[in-house]
């Protein structure tokens, strides 16, 4: 499995034709304590860069954008029930949604972990 990153501080774990998407540890640190997460509905067709989810901290609301085009095939109800997971386990347990990848060429513009680390350094 490959993990890729976006400028907007999202991670994508690629498993065949499905990408699992969450926000990075850097992003959760910037947001502060997350108190509310709203996820897209399963079956929704998302275009790249479209607002897909909302994450709210005590301070502010932030959009999570679809990093690639695809159909939502699963969402993580656990982060809706316990938004603090986004702070405690951002890179794994607090995944937001899974997309069926529509166009693998859209993955080409994303960063690998080394490039993302350099980006946030």
């Amino acid at each position, binding site marked *: 499995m490959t993990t890729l990153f976006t400028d907007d501080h999202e991670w994508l774990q690629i498993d065949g034709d499905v990408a699992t998407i969450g926000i990075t540890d850097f992003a959760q640190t910037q947001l502060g304590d997350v108190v*509310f997460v709203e996820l897209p509905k399963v079956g929704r067709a998302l275009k790249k860069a479209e607002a897909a989810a909302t994450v709210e901290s005590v301070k502010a609301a932030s959009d999570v954008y679809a990093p690639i085009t695809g159909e939502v095939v699963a969402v993580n109800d656990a982060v809706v029930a316990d938004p603090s997971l986004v702070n405690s386990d951002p890179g794994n347990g607090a995944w937001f949604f899974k997309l069926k990848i529509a166009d693998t060429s859209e993955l080409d513009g994303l960063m690998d972990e080394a490039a993302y680390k350099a980006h946030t350094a």
Partner: protein
Amino acid sequence: MPAHAHDAPALDPLKRVPLHALHLVRGGKMVPFAGYEMPVQYAAGVLKEHLHTRAAAGLFDVSHMGQIALRPKSGQVADAASALERLVPQDIGSIAPGRQRYALFTNAAGGILDDLMVANFGDHLFLVVNAACKDADEAHLRAHLSDACTVEPLTDRALVALQGPKAAAVLAKHAPDVAAMRFMDAGPRRILDADCFVSRSGYTGEDGFEISIPAADAERVVTTLLADADVLPIGLGARDSLRLEAGLCLYGHDIDTATTPVEAALEWAVQKSRRSGGAKAGGFPGADVILPQFENGAARRRVGLKAEGRAPVREGAPLFADATATDRIGTVTSGGFGPSVNGPVAMGYVPTALSAIDTLVFAEVRGQRLPLRVAKLPFVAPTYQR
């Protein structure tokens, strides 16, 4: 924290408070606020800072606020009080020495120019005003009261708040006489050999104190208070969530020049003596607008709003009477997640006919209509030591 329309223009260099270096040492995340660099949070984060204040004690730097000595030219504080009554709908003359009162500068349209605290220090009045308004407030005082008073901005003093159930015990270790103060007592006190002004008041709904400290002593005094295991430094982020849960207005948001004291549900802050039929009725700007509203009510009213769901409803969200109505009935003026309530809380203006507790209204957030109930303020019961 939401951006503030009345913040200083970005081109002005940001001013620094006397405790600036201490904030950096304590890991404060500094942001522009009302023309100053202020800590919005520390390492603990807004949520923990908020809950710590309600459980133990929080230390807030509010040195950006304006501190003003209003001195009577006659030497009689009653003359300063009656002069100030020209500008506010409060009874200033009845503030006993060693006491303070919440007040409002009003304008000719009945709107609110600023909210402030007025303390009677025996031979003069001590005022604390909002940072974003302080220059205008000083000019306003000079323009209208110079016949009777000198207006002295106290720019060489820090102002901090120590708030929470442990605040009194912590402060009394260094100034035993503060333990006997009651809510809204105010006056000069020696703390750690510094000539401070202390009031038993605050902006969190908790018992606590606001302490004005000479700038030269501020870091030493605050470092000593922060060394107490019960005290954490708290940023402006938690200050905002604490005051929202306490149902307290934020100037420029919940009250401004377009809201009257009656619309803002601040009738309690206007003493009967200044209302129609009172011994000192009227005589303040906008009395012809404000006083009839005490008899007849106002068309709209500030209310508490509690979301039925989990999504925070924030400042600026439009309000509607039902899930589909197109006519907006009001606006959320403060809103967010209340850590002690453990849910979304907000305040806003609705038509008075829809201001009864439990009335259902809807806020539009990201294209969805979210149900809210008009709720009793404050959201969290205050623990003031009256």
